């Protein structure tokens, strides 16, 4: 095993690195320049509202990466990643709420919704969130801790396949109801909103938005490299082996619990970070993020792009959400039909996602293909022989 710079370089071949760095360059340099430096009249100018929109998509890209790590490489379809996303978002939202100070509608020390509910003092779990150095670790700890505990119990009792999916869905549903309550102390139905500033920077300033965009882009790049590191490592290969034949790995002396739990927890961590970056850019976090439909949509980003490719899911998140942003405005009635058709069509006709087809995505496909050869084919899970595969029986 190689370490350090050498290991980093080994994540991709030459062409892979050129592609990754090229995309990163476009995303992190060209877009801010087109927005800020190109005069507003020019056709090259990027309107101001596009930057936070793209920033939002970047956050979704991080979520899609996290989903792919757990679904594409560990074979675990989570319908609960919205929970970790929302938890990270709420932690950040609580800080932003406290950062409003006395500038709320009621000019009170307390957040507006607490004044509205006639609360006299801050609930215990809000203490500390007025400091950024406290909120930031919370963004990492809260989703991770929940994921660890939940995952520990779920994986230990060897809940797999569809069972695991519907249990995570139930978790999401229960937490959504929980966050909807006013008594929970997190703004109930309306959630947390009306944020003013982050670390003293005005959130409505374009410069702050561009900075948040850049941070999101950087985080996505780092997250991609981290996931890439994991799946090309020895542990990543064991993870894939567990996905394909868990019993066999157990007989070979591996404990699937450790690997699954690690991947699961890391995936939740990424989601929490994405949520924390998402909230200041969209300016609101409320329980609708916890709707079960949101979590399922996350899975479709991955499926659209192509499972087990890391690049594909990011692409899928951009395509699906871009289409959603456009179509829900242009054809609001048709959107659910289109989304439904995407769900059905992708699973029926594009089991490997967009990266599974050639044409305009050939370059990306090659990028993913090289990784696939290095890391063991993810297509194994798709083989029609699955019905007679050994672990199917225990899934039922």
């Amino acid at each position: 095993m190689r370490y350090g710079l050498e290991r980093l370089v080994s994540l991709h071949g030459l062409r892979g690195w050129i592609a990754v760095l090229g995309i990163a360059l476009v995303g992190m340099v060209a877009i801010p320049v087109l927005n800020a430096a190109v005069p507003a009249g020019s056709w090259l100018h990027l309107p101001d509202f596009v930057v936070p929109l793209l920033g939002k998509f970047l956050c979704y890209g991080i979520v899609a990466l996290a989903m792919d790590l757990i679904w594409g490489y560990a074979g675990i379809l989570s319908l609960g990643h919205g929970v970790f996303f929302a938890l990270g978002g709420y932690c950040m939202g609580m800080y932003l709420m406290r950062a409003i100070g006395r500038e709320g509608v009621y000019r009170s020390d307390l957040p507006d919704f607490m004044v509205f509910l006639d609360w006299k003092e801050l609930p215990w779990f809000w203490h500390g969130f007025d400091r950024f150095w406290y909120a930031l670790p919370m963004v990492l700890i809260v989703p991770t801790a929940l994921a660890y505990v939940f995952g520990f119990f779920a994986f230990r009792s060897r809940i797999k396949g569809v069972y695991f999916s519907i249990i995570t869905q139930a978790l999401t549903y229960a937490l959504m109801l929980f966050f909807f309550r006013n008594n929970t102390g997190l703004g109930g139905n309306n959630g947390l909103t009306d944020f003013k500033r982050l670390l003293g920077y005005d959130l409505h300033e374009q410069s702050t938005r561009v900075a948040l965009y850049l941070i999101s882009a950087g985080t996505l790049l780092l997250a991609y490299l981290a996931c890439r590191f994991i799946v090309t490592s020895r542990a990543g290969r064991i993870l894939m082996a567990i996905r394909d034949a868990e019993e066999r790995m157990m007989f070979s002396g591996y404990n699937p619990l450790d690997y699954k739990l690690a991947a699961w927890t890391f995936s939740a961590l990424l989601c929490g970070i994405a949520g924390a970056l998402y909230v200041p850019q969209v300016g609101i976090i409320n329980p609708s993020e916890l709707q079960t439909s949101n979590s399922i949509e996350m899975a479709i980003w991955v499926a659209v792009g192509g499972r087990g490719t890391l690049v594909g899911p990011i692409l899928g998140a951009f395509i699906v959400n871009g289409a959603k942003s456009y179509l829900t405005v242009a054809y609001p009635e048709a959107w659910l039909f289109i989304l439904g058709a995407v769900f059905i069509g992708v699973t029926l006709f594009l089991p490997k996602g967009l990266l599974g087809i050639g044409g305009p995505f050939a370059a990306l496909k090659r990028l993913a293909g090289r990784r696939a050869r290095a890391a063991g084919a993810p297509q194994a899970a798709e083989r029609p022989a699955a019905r007679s595969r050994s672990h199917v029986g225990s899934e039922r």
Partner: protein
Amino acid sequence: MERAPSPRERAPASAAPDGLRVAPAPGAARNTAAAPDLTLPGIPFDMRNHRCNRLFPCGIALLMTLLTAASLHAADLKSALKKVASDERGTLMEGIETLGTLGDPDALPVLEALRDDTLRVAPGGKLYILSPDGKRASEVGTGRSAPADSLKLEEPPINNAVRKSIDSSIAQLQLFSRNPEQRLSAARELANRATPDDAPKVRAALARETEAAVKHILQATLARLDLSSSDRTVRLNAVRTLGETGDIQRMNDLQQLTAVKPDGAFAEPDREIRAAAAAAMKSIQLRQTIISLGGDLLYGLSLGSVLLLVALGLAITFGLMGIINMAHGEMLMLGAYTTYVVQNIVQKTLPAYFNWYVLLALPAAFAVCGVAGIVLERAILRFLYNRPLESLLATWGISLALIQSVRQIFGAANVTVANPAWLSGGYAVYADLVLPYNRIFIVLLGAIVVTLVWLLLQHTSLGLQVRAVTQNRAIASTMGIRTAQVDMWTFALGSGIAGIGGVALSQLGNVGPELGQSYIVDSFMVVVLGGVGKIAGTVVGAMGLGIVAKYLEPLSDAVLGKIILLVFIILFIQRRPQGLFALKGRAVEN
């Protein structure tokens, strides 16, 4: 998830105002034994009616007494009605009050007509009641009807004071009404309003009352009035009665008895009565606990039955094919909308049979959802049997499309499905424990469907094949079972059962495009809890979940209850990963 009960769930259908029907001869016909049958049209002949002229095989002496009393009474009634016909306001009010105290329900239509401003006086002091369109008038007493224009009718001199006395007289009379529903509501109304002056009236009503529920309320009312009696034994008996009737509304009165006044003395000087009051309070509390437990049990069972109807199909198809159908909740929604459509069709084409539209909706919903299930299975799902996780996504896509289709067709707003008469109201076990008929219906429906499915699975060849494929698809296939066919029919069956669940749900509340979404997570939990392939598991899982959810509600609130349940389920499958009732033997071989 339990929805808040909609108003129509709770309120019993208001009684048809029988009293408004103008009877032939309430007053006049009563005098002679030869008078025509006194039974009012639409009102059952009633033993309570002591003025009855039918010759019962009873002693002649008794008959004589009754007749005398009846004619005396009838004379009073007649003179009171005459007073009502007066154009003098004071005499009119006197007449109204007499009608109230006489307690003859036959006077009710007159008073109600007076209240509704349809009573008219003809020259000569005859009273007439106008028909709803105002064109004809029928005479009070004889029921003879004539065109209103020909009679030179005049309106009685009514003002606000008169209206007040009309209302109070109506309230009094309703206690004696022939319609039990009306008596019940009158008694309820009186329970809190009655003053010691009303005691004789309550006593009189109690003596004639036959309906247990009304009797119960009147007893409690009387006991409350007796609490302020100066007679010690009366008070003591009143306290004991309050304890027996167990009405929670009387807690306050009892608490006042045991309270200590500011000067240190007890509000109730008698020690024995204080002790009796304490005991009565205890028994009231106990009774309330039992009642709420009983009511919750039915609510839990009916919630469990809905879950059962949803989860039954899920569990069978999951056991058979290893896939979870996310669109299964939408079958529930489709079934509910089918009920809505059937309701509208029946209302338009066969209004006479409107009451029975639910019975037509059951097979219709089963058929609609069954066909939808077949289409779904043949068109999409059969290609995904090897890929359970992706079938989950595909069925989710189907559910989105179904929800949006229904929105396009029926609109995004909720539609109302009416309870037929036989499903509204409830069975009153006690006065304050009413079991709604719609919930009882759902529990029965659940039981019937489970029985049928059990028979189907255990005693038909399709059932045998389903069980074989569930246990081992490959071997079943080599034995000559057409597994694809079995899949299709089972899927249709499961979807159809969910459709029946939709009919049941439509009787509980409003029907909206997202109806299925709120039940699907719970029914998944039933499958996880109960295991697959055994009906017993699904039944126990559904009922357990329904009842536990209902009982957890008051302990915390509904949401925390849900979270507790989820934690419980996760911990539970630590011990029993296969659910409560796992298939044994060949099924688990790898």
